[in-house]
């Protein structure tokens, strides 16, 4: 019993300490925004896109006088796209008394972290996680400025069924929440369209040798392969398929669509089909913003740069509209209004997803560039 009382006392003491720290932090005249995503690890380049976009938004908002008379301040947290580290980062953000988070990147990191933010009343906007499960929980503090797998999968599936029309195809995924989710969606759509899915199989992320799988794909005589996952594995699959004489066309989600896939696969990446969010940097309305990125020597072409910019902007707009930095109030406002951003006019549904977001199919080239196939 005494032990229990001691624990309670300790808890009270700790929360008092936290509260006093919180008091100090709120007295400062900046509004901190946590940018959570991979700074390190194999998908760090996607993290860079996210940070580039968000930091630009923070800079520009600050130049225009900030929000409610206060400046925004970016604080970067590295989750390395590791669910365990994401939880640690989320707890750190809670301890650092930050109320607004842009992140995380990988769906498998965003999911566990979002539980913590919801419990602690912290507003989180992800600009990159596309797993439907994240917003399916009906959380009030969680938003996203990008489309869902459940949207990207059907887009890809529809394209395969209507434009490619293969007789036999295979669907491969990396057994992760993101990859398997999209792969399953694609499989369901193409099977409804009467395409024979000869193979639906998972590979282990981090594997280097896919020769056994490629031999199997060759034996099954598939004409088309959809891969749900990220570029390190697909790059190797493409490269080894070319070496082993597998003549099939490949397609993947936005997780494979970056220049590294061309570095890994070389010529074998030519003609790969990728579904990506619309290239916001090609939109004439964003020319000024693209020039601002160029002036800072930053790359504005990544798929998550503009959604991250919008994520920061809607937070700032929400704070301005409510004239407060209370994340709960801001979250309520976001659901009731439409915001004009570089990624279009954003409005959120009850789950925190965008009411309207479309993916576009691109043809990837060996030099790391892409051309749109469908609009």
């Amino acid at each position: 019993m005494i032990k229990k009382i001691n624990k309670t006392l300790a808890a009270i003491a700790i929360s008092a300490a936290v509260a006093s720290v919180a008091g100090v932090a709120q007295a400062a005249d900046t509004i901190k925004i946590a940018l959570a995503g991979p700074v390190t690890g194999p998908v760090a380049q996607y993290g860079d896109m996210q940070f580039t976009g968000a930091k630009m938004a923070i800079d520009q908002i600050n130049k225009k006088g900030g929000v409610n008379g206060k400046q925004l301040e970016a604080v970067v947290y590295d989750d390395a796209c590791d669910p365990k580290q994401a939880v640690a980062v989320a707890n750190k953000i809670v301890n650092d008394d930050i109320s607004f988070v842009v992140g995380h990147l990988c769906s498998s990191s965003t999911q566990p972290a979002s539980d913590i933010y919801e419990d602690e009343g912290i507003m989180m906007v992800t600009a990159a996680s596309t797993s439907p499960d994240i917003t399916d929980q009906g959380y009030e503090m969680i938003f996203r400025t990008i489309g869902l797998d459940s949207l990207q999968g059907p887009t890809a599936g529809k394209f395969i069924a209507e434009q490619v029309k293969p007789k036999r195809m295979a669907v491969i995924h990396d057994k992760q929440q993101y990859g398997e989710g999209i792969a399953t969606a694609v499989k369901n759509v193409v099977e409804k369209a009467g395409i024979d899915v000869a193979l639906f199989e998972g590979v282990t992320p981090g594997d280097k040798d896919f020769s056994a799988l490629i031999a199997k794909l060759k034996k099954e005589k598939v004409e088309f392969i959809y891969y749900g996952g990220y570029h390190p594995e697909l790059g190797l699959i493409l490269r080894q398929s070319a070496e082993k004489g597998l003549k099939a066309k490949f397609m993947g989600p936005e997780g494979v669509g970056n220049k590294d896939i061309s570095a890994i696969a070389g010529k074998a990446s030519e003609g790969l089909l990728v579904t990506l969010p619309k290239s916001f940097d090609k939109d004439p309305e964003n020319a000024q913003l693209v020039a601002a990125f160029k002036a800072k020597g930053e790359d504005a072409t990544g798929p998550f740069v503009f959604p991250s910019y919008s994520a920061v902007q809607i937070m700032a707009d929400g704070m301005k509209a409510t004239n407060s930095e209370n994340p709960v109030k801001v979250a309520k406002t976001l659901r009731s209004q439409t915001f004009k951003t570089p990624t279009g006019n954003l409005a959120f549904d009850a789950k925190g997803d965008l009411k309207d977001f479309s993916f576009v199919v691109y043809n990837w080239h060996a030099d790391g560039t892409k051309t749109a196939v469908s609009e």
Partner: protein
Amino acid sequence: MPESVYYFIQQLLNGLTVGSTYALIAIGYTMVYGIIGMINFAHGEVYMIGSYIAFAVLAALAMMGIDSVSLMLVSAFVISVIITSTYGFAIERVAYRPLRNSNRLIALISAIGMSIFLQNYVRLAQGSRDIAMPSLITGGWAFGPEDGFQATVSYMQLIIFVVTFVSMSALTLFISKSKMGKACRACAEDLGMTNLLGIDTNKVISLTFVIGAALAAVAGVLLGIYYGVINPYIGFMAGLKAFTAAVLGGIGSIPGAVLGGLILGVTEAFTAGYFSSEYKDVVAFSLLILILLFKPTGILGKPEVEKV
């Protein structure tokens, strides 16, 4: 021949290639264990460093405008083996020698620490992104029906078989015939006694680490070029698989490490080829458990006499 025969041959070749690479790395584990009874968990990272040095050499040569494939290969091998061996030597000196007379568990923890250190050291120095290596040797043979399933073997696969076989034979000869090899075997038998008889056991142990690191460097160069992608994390998985191969074949036995590697590789390829690649690790590790249940010392391992 029917198509299914070609398919079988293809999967066998795939398995043997992967198995050879496991074997090359497994030799390093097994040698160290055979002599000082310690599992060098940093060995996978040594392999990774070998890959990075090969990449640095190739990049430097490309910058100097040298594009002769044989010269690039030879210099990548030579420089990587020399520098990686130095790493192997230094790791033993810094992390294991001071702990040699303490509890085995302490040396094991030191090895895990070393592994984490090396991984992060390369990550900080080189960045965590995937680095693409140029494919120096392309092409190969294809056989089978023109319109049906064709089995393929690339030149690179052949090189991997040959290098593994040559390295293993040379090492076996060295251990069984040379004077230094005899000293190695003596150390494996009884380290304390060998020392008393006037053999410099420190030198023998250093040599073991150098040989293990050199072979890991060979594997690093070969696999870096074969798969074409390296990152600071490749050592972990490769080390784990190689360690499994060493245990499967009987840790402490060099032919056992090669046999274990090949069995592991072929099992994985057949599971992926005839069943599903999702289950290849499950089947491979179930096999390990089964073999250890019936033969706890591994396939070629000698039962260890309990020293009192």
